[in-house]
């Protein structure tokens, strides 16, 4: 079975631009979470979606938004990019939304903002 997939793998943008990152969960998983990992730190939670509804939001500005589609895939959108948005963006999928709920991560999208 395929694991979590993310696209693109790498992306270079300039300040002020918009970016869309995509994630497909493991087949049968209904929850997708997004994390941002800057160099030298652990991943930071951005959003969780379960059954197409937002179930959790981390401490990120409104420039960050996401959605989940009927097939449980998800998009993360970031508007008005800043240099500080340069990071590895990780998507995780799980079967349930919370509780006794192992999460599995995709390979990530490495975003560079110039």
């Amino acid at each position, binding site marked *: 079975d395929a694991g979590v997939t993310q696209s693109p793998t790498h992306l270079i943008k300039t300040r002020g631009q918009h970016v869309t990152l995509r994630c497909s969960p493991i087949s049968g998983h209904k*929850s997708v*979470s997004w*994390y941002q*990992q800057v160099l030298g*730190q*652990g*991943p*930071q*939670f951005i959003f*969780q979606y*379960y059954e197409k509804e937002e*179930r*959790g939001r*981390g401490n990120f500005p409104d420039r960050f938004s996401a959605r989940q589609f009927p097939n449980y895939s998800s998009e993360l959108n970031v508007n008005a990019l800043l240099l500080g948005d340069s990071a*590895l963006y*990780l998507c*995780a999928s*799980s079967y*349930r*939304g*919370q*509780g*006794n*709920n*192992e*999460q*599995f*991560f995709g*390979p*990530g999208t*490495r975003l560079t903002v110039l």
Partner: protein
Amino acid sequence: GIQVEQSPPDLILQEGANSTLRCNFSDSVNNLQWFHQNPWGQLINLFYIPSGTKQNGRLSATTVATERYSLLYISSSQTTDSGVYFCAVEQGNQGGKLIFGQGTELSVKP
């Protein structure tokens, strides 16, 4: 919010040595996972272990939930074990949000 602390922050071993990585957390949790992040950034699941002990080959983990810590044991280390090891926890009312520690960077020398 809950704090997750990992120790040591860095560890250098000779191939064949054993090691113990520690994860302390400041509140009760209902999910604890250990990950290995490879040089390409992929987070690889090692253990899902909210409590108890599990073993997988040369790796094993123990979580003592009542004392709020977890240990990851690596025996007979190999150069391919190099990378960053993360502990992450989830609390029951936090919508599937994993809180990560800062990681332990392991380097295994041949």
